[in-house]
């Protein structure tokens, strides 16, 4: 089997039920955008990469290792996914930012880290604010801050800006992409917006009807 040194993920003959059917796809280490209409299977790809689901057929490699041979929970801690609909746990902003640490029985995060993460996503709220007082957009920012605090090896972002207005959506995506690039962490992002896709990505994967149609390289690195 040919191994591409630069590939982060490699999909060979991957299908998932009758939702997705991808003969071959390589995802590199930069910022990759998956672009396509609703229901085309974008989220399904992210879930496969995060191992929330497993391919019905075919093989999926991460850093050259077949995913089936790795521990799913350990994998999810490295390759963290931001869900399309921000799901909030009971409690306040602080509880939600700390939720992954609570689950993993790790020490809680320092307040200064919480503030800096909230700042990155542009959520200027007191960490003691109950999450049920937040708007949809604020919840999305909070969910993003939660993912950033995990410092994942790879970011999987499912419509990171779907609940935000255009201007703030771009600002959030931009901050995140710059941060990820600076820290050399790959990003795989699903979006509806061709503008965002073109502006920030190194590669755009277009998908329609559960099949990947093409991959184009772009100049996102200039931004």
């Amino acid at each position, binding site marked *: 089997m040919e191994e591409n040194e630069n590939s982060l993920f490699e999909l060979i003959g991957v299908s998932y039920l009758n939702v997705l059917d991808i003969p071959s796809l390589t995802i590199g280490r930069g910022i990759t955008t998956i672009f396509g209409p609703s229901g085309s299977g974008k989220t399904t790809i992210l879930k496969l990469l995060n191992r929330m689901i497993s391919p019905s057929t075919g093989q999926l490699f991460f850093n050259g290792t077949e995913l089936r041979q790795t521990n799913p929970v350990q994998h999810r801690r490295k390759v*963290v996914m931001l869900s399309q609909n921000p799901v909030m746990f009971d409690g306040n902003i602080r509880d939600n930012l700390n939720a992954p640490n609570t689950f993993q029985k790790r020490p809680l995060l320092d307040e200064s880290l919480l503030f800096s993460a909230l700042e990155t996503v542009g959520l200027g709220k007191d960490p003691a604010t109950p999450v049920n007082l937040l708007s949809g957009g604020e919840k999305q920012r909070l969910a993003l801050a939660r993912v950033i605090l995990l410092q994942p090896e790879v970011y999987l972002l499912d419509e990171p800006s779907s609940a935000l207005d255009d201007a703030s959506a771009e600002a959030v995506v931009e901050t995140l992409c710059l941060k990820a690039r600076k820290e050399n962490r790959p990003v795989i992002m699903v979006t509806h917006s061709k503008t965002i896709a073109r502006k920030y990505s190194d590669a755009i994967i277009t998908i329609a009807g559960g099949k990947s149609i093409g991959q184009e390289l772009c100049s996102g690195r200039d931004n």
Partner: protein
Amino acid sequence: MEGIIELTLWQVAAAYLFVVIVLLIVKSRGIKKEGEIVLSSVRMTLQLILAGYVLVYVLDNPNPFITAAIIILMEAFAIYTVMAKFKGRLNGKLKKIIALSMGLGAGACLLYLIFAVIGVQPWYDPQYFIPIAGMVIGNSMTGVSLAVKSLLEGMTTRRQIVEEALILGATPREATADIINQTFDSAIMPTINSMLGMGIIFLPGMMTGQILAGVSPTTAIAYQIAIMLGILGAVAVSVILALQMGYRTFFNREEQLV
């Protein structure tokens, strides 16, 4: 103390007035429960009459095999009752887990009560074994039934939360910890509540029965305390076994929700 007043057939029949009252209430409210109320009253009556005759025979002819057979039958019926209650909502694995946890939880606590606490001689004496088994098994059945209900509900209504926890790197155990704890709490709540009110708000059935039968109240309460603690143990052990094994059935080997 004098012996107990024997109830005549007519006296017992007079008690059915309560069923009539309940039927009138549900009828006037338009609650469609008449069938169930009649069925449960009839079944209760027939099952108790049958149990009465069986017990007369068993108590007169103590035999280890008969005692053991009756305990197994009670346990099997309790397990069957839980399964029937959740018909179509349990997968094969969960059914096995329910049977195992009820058998082990109630079984272990029952044996401890009979042998270590009360020290029944001979061990199979049906006069002790059967009523105590009934209480322990019955309560563990109620507990497991509540636990299964709350677990199924929790895993349905909080599915998104569980999924999000998995996405953020939680193991299935961590992702379901809240659901499991709340489920355990709601399953042992009735037992805890009845212990809180015991002796003040209500006098439990076994103690009342013993007192009615002429046993000294101090002996009756000693038994009641032992049984109540045995019930608490049986409920807690069978519920926690069911939950500890049960939550796994909602996940596959790749730690994904199924």
